[in-house]
């Protein structure tokens, strides 16, 4: 289930994540092999509870696997210390969550610059970069707003801007449109399309077939196992909205 033309930016081999013991043992991720090339958009699809979010957490070093290995840009990360994983998340991997996970007491621009500040950027550089990103995402006029004053789509855009602030190798998105209405979903899809054109590597976990259809490749997941891989073309034609039926 992998593409071997270029060295993969993200590589998982026999990846496993188990919870519990004995009869209560649950295999959330059960021997997953996966290669993702730079610039590729990959969708992982499956019903709730199939293990796709867990897989995403393992790929980004947010959780530790029970077995197998994960390599990011050729470097094995599953055996790194918590500290090293944290440093890696500052620069190489970033997340977009379904429920946005913005700091409620920080304005949009302060949320976006947080990753850069954690990575050691100067306050001025971090703020400039955050404002540029918000501008590019159409939120320049909302940069001083608190999350509570933003719509769902705007909040997710802020979360995406935060994910991009350190120019990561890979953006991992966990049900990024799960909490959004149709209009906001379209907004986010168009945003991902732009990121794709820009060459950003994206891994999107979703149970929505319309979202998955926008990727270069789509994997189906059941009971912790990737059971099917589909190569798509919709993700590269720039007509995402039309493709998924969200616009004419």
């Amino acid at each position, binding site marked *: 289930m992998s593409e071997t033309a270029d060295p993969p930016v993200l590589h998982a081999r026999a990846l496993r994540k188990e919870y519990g013991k004995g009869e209560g043992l649950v295999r959330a991720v059960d021997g997953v092999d996966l290669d993702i090339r730079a610039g590729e958009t990959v969708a992982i699809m499956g019903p709730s509870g199939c293990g796709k*979010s*867990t897989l995403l*957490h393992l790929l980004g070093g*947010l*959780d530790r696997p029970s077995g197998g290995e994960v390599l990011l840009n050729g470097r094995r990360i599953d055996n790194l210390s*918590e*500290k090293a994983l*944290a*440093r890696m*998340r*500052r*620069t190489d991997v*970033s*997340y977009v*969550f379904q*429920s*946005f*996970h*913005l*700091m*409620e*007491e*920080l304005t949009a621009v*302060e949320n976006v*610059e*947080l*990753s850069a*500040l*954690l*990575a*050691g950027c100067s*306050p001025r550089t*971090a*703020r400039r970069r955050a404002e540029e990103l918000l501008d590019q995402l159409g939120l320049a006029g909302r940069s001083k707003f*608190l*999350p*509570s004053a933003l719509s769902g789509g705007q909040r997710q855009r802020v979360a995406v801007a*935060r994910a991009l602030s*350190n120019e990561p190798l890979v953006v991992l998105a966990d049900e990024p449109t799960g909490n959004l209405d149709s209009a906001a979903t379209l907004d986010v899809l168009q945003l991902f399309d732009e990121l794709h054109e820009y060459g950003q590597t994206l891994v999107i976990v979703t149970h929505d077939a319309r979202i998955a259809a926008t990727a270069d490749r789509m994997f189906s997941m059941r009971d912790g196992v990737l059971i099917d891989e589909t190569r798509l073309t919709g993700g590269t034609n720039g007509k995402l909205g039309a493709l998924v039926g969200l616009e004419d």
Partner: protein
Amino acid sequence: MGRILLVVRLALRDLRQRRTEAALLMIAILAATTTLTLGLVLREAASDPYESTRAATNGPDVVAHVARPTDLALLEELATASGVTAHSGPYPVIAGRLQAAGRTSDVQVEGRDATIAAVDQPEVTQGSWVSGGQVVLEAAFADALDVNVGDPVTLGGKSFTVAGVAVTAAMPPHPAASCIVTTGCVNGAIPQGRNLPARLLHNPGLVWLTQAEVRSLALTQGPMSYVTNLKLADPGDTQAFVAANSGALIMQTWQDILAEATDLAKDSQILLLIGAWLLGLLAIASLSVLVGGRMADQTRRVGLLKAVGGTPGLVAAVLLAEYLLVALIAAAAGLVIGALTAPLLTESSAGLVGSAGTPSLTWSTIGLVTAVALGVAVVATAVPAVRGARSSTVSALANAARPPRRTGWLIAVSTRLPVPLLLTLRLTARQPRRVVLGVVSIGVTVSGIYVLLALNTFLGDQPGTGAYSEAQVIVLRHVLGVWMGVLLALAAVNAIVITWATVLDNRHSSALTRALGATPGEMSTALAVAQVLPAFAGAVLGLPGGFALFAAINAITGGDGDRAVLPSLWQLLTLVVGTVFAVAVLTTVPACIGGRRPVTETLQAEPA
């Protein structure tokens, strides 16, 4: 009735579910109620033994003495004065030196009859009353000299056997005895380098011989004075009697003797009461943090109660009930512990009947301690309870957390700091009230320690220079020890509770920050430093607070503040640094646990 049952049942169930928090609540209130009980019980203990002694010895209302035999007629005239219902004496008194078990001490020797006196018949606690060739020692004096019945002593060059040990209400116990000899006395330690006049008695004890032996000793020991003990028709109006009959007579009322006899117990009581109020403040800080954190967790429970028809009043009653229940239990436990511990702090008064073990609870003490415990619980609980009761049912059911506070300038400042400090400031900015509680808690603790340091230095000088004997210093040191122990224990509980509450309240933001690249070490450091910074501020503010508290104690006890040795600069620096270090150590474990909580679990479990 049904509602009350429901409220009690819900309160009990919730307490059972959260045993650790209930235990912490209990400790906080218990510390305050125990200390308050000790203080109040000692107040009773201060006067009870004297009252018992007065009753047992038919103690005098007024003690009068004259320094010259020529004034003896004045005493005889006084015995028949208006208002006098009974009297004993005049008895001859001389100054002397007593040698016993290799020790020598100044004494006032009073000549008494072998028969029982109508007023002030000393109560023999060991042995028997005076007879020829035998001496009876005042109990506290015998205790200090370690002399027992049957021991030989020498008085004025003559040998006597100790017939007994007795207590009297006509004079404060040794070493606070009043002076009834012609030569004069001085109590307390003599500062080094100062010589007293040769004949002046120093810390004299009181002994009784037969009148005949006193008169015989007077031939070689010097002039006699005379003392008469009077009972008045109105014991409460001794001042008027003294004013009407003064002149060449020197008179002392039973109220004066009581004040001097119970001076030490009163000082202990003042220290404990001040300690109790400090601990009460700490308990409020503790409770506020615990209750605040707990109320946040109870949002959904409040929503459920309201959804099934609970009125805001019922909801508030349920939330308040469990804290009041804990406060009641803590008050009861505090009363028992305080009453049982108090005798350990009153053992100095061997010169009074039943002075050890007599402290007992009165209804006023029980009422006051219970009221304070309930008051502490209500003060700490009322605001969050009312807020919870007034919250919207829908948002409570949805468990919608209150958004954290935004302190814009602090967020702006934090961007210029290293990552751990950036996170620290933002944690601080989210919970400003908790930071204030942390500062107050440490400030109160450091103020208490400041006072303890000053008092400890003061007591250290006492056996050499002050008004307290070594035994009394030991008792007061016990009191300070109790105070210090409880204060430090409660401060430690506070530091841990505040840190843990911060960890719990910030679990989502901590997990998110780690997902964005903060290391567990940076997060743990931030959580710990968020406690250490308020601790530093509290420690610094506690120093002037301690100075003010010490001044207040001086004012209340009538102490000589100018003579007190305040903590030195190095002691103050050590206190601040030590406090900050202690807080850092105490908060390390909860901060480390908080900084290493699994990120994914928290982010999946909690909404943004």
